[in-house]
């Protein structure tokens, strides 16, 4: 009995401590990376390269996701609002749900799938092939050279991608709502303009930047600390994607309840 109890509590304690330790390690790694931004050498060209790979690379998939999100919201919103006879609210319903909620979260998911996984896999393979050690041997700080540009790129790229997602989503919602379902164009735009306030947009940008930081921090850490084997990299990539998705949703809830 006593052995069983010590076994159970030991297991709980061990997993708690190890997850705390990993959270702390990941936080320290991203803080170190952000410090490296302010220290020479200047890594501008690497940041631009990462913005290209992560931001521009995710543009098409984000635009497609945004378009279909706006379209399906128009259909579903129309179906629901028509039951109350208030189809004219369609514009504000689409705009508020895309700007406050779906834009940041879906764009973050797409960035995780498209860019987060590749960050982890890339850094993990650098670990396996000892490129990180080689950098250190050449007195190049791998945190400043590899980690920092990637975190910074996700933080910068995600709000921009979210803005593009919003615009594409609203335009697609307009096309379906006005041209296909016959909602009054003036009412659609008018409702959208009066109901969306600057605070709603600000929440969207804050969420986007927060998610970007979270994705960058989690995905780089998993790659950096990946076990130096093929399976290790595979496992790290899976875990990075899963944990990023879950923590984006958790942070989304926290930010929404905080700002409401």
């Amino acid at each position, binding site marked *: 009995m006593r052995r069983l109890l010590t076994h159970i509590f030991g297991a709980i304690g061990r997993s708690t401590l190890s997850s705390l330790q990993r959270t702390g390690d990941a936080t320290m790694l991203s803080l170190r990376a952000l410090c490296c931004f302010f220290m020479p050498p200047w890594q501008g*060209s690497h940041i*631009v*390269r990462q*913005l*290209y790979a992560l*931001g*521009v690379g995710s*543009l098409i998939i984000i635009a497609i996701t945004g378009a279909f999100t706006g379209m399906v919201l128009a259909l579903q919103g129309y179906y629901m609002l028509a039951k*109350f006879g*208030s189809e004219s609210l369609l514009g504000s319903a689409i*705009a508020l749900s895309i*700007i406050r909620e779906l834009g940041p979260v879906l764009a973050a998911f797409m960035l995780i799938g498209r860019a987060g996984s590749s960050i982890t896999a890339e850094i993990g393979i650098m670990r396996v092939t000892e490129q990180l050690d080689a950098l250190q041997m050449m007195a190049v700080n791998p945190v400043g050279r590899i980690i920092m540009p990637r975190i910074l790129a996700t933080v*910068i790229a995600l*709000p*921009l*991608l979210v*803005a*593009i997602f*919003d*615009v594409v989503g609203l335009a697609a919602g307009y096309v379906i709502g006005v041209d296909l379902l016959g909602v009054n164009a003036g009412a659609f735009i008018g409702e*959208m*303009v*009066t*109901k*969306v*306030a*600057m605070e*709603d*947009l600000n929440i969207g*940008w804050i969420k986007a930047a927060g998610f970007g930081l979270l994705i960058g921090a989690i995905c780089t850490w998993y790659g950096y600390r990946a076990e130096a084997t093929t399976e290790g990299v595979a496992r790290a990539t899976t875990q990075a994607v899963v944990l990023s998705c879950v923590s984006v949703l958790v942070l989304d809830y926290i930010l929404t309840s905080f700002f409401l």
Partner: protein
Amino acid sequence: MQGYRKIEIIVGIFVFVGIVAIAGLAIKLGQIGGLSSSGYELTAVFEDVGGIRVGGDVMMAGVSIGRVADVSLDDDSEAHLLLEINEGIKISTDAIATVRTKGIIGERYIRITQGADEESLNDGDEIEETESAINIEDLVSKYIFSPDNKE
């Protein structure tokens, strides 16, 4: 280095498009530099505003002339509204503010009916004449219990 120049240009275009999208949304939907910066504020005290919200329309003759900037309860348990009126709209000192509903279940808005006075209200003034939200239940009970109907 040729490849890097190309990357730089494409990233530049990406950042530019993103910032244009942000600015476009902020100007078109967030109304930066629109209603909030130019215009003036009036206060009005109502007995009952029927659940009007911040951002609700202020209309005159069916034209939107501003919005509700703040709703609060004052010491006398009356609703205290702060109305943001667009620049250039003149409201006479004896104007009447009424809480109305768009349609039957629509949202509440403030209707302002112009008075006869020559002078107009300035920033920070109060609209003295107010009329509360029409409550259907009150109307019904008033009709039923009014002395004229008791025979």
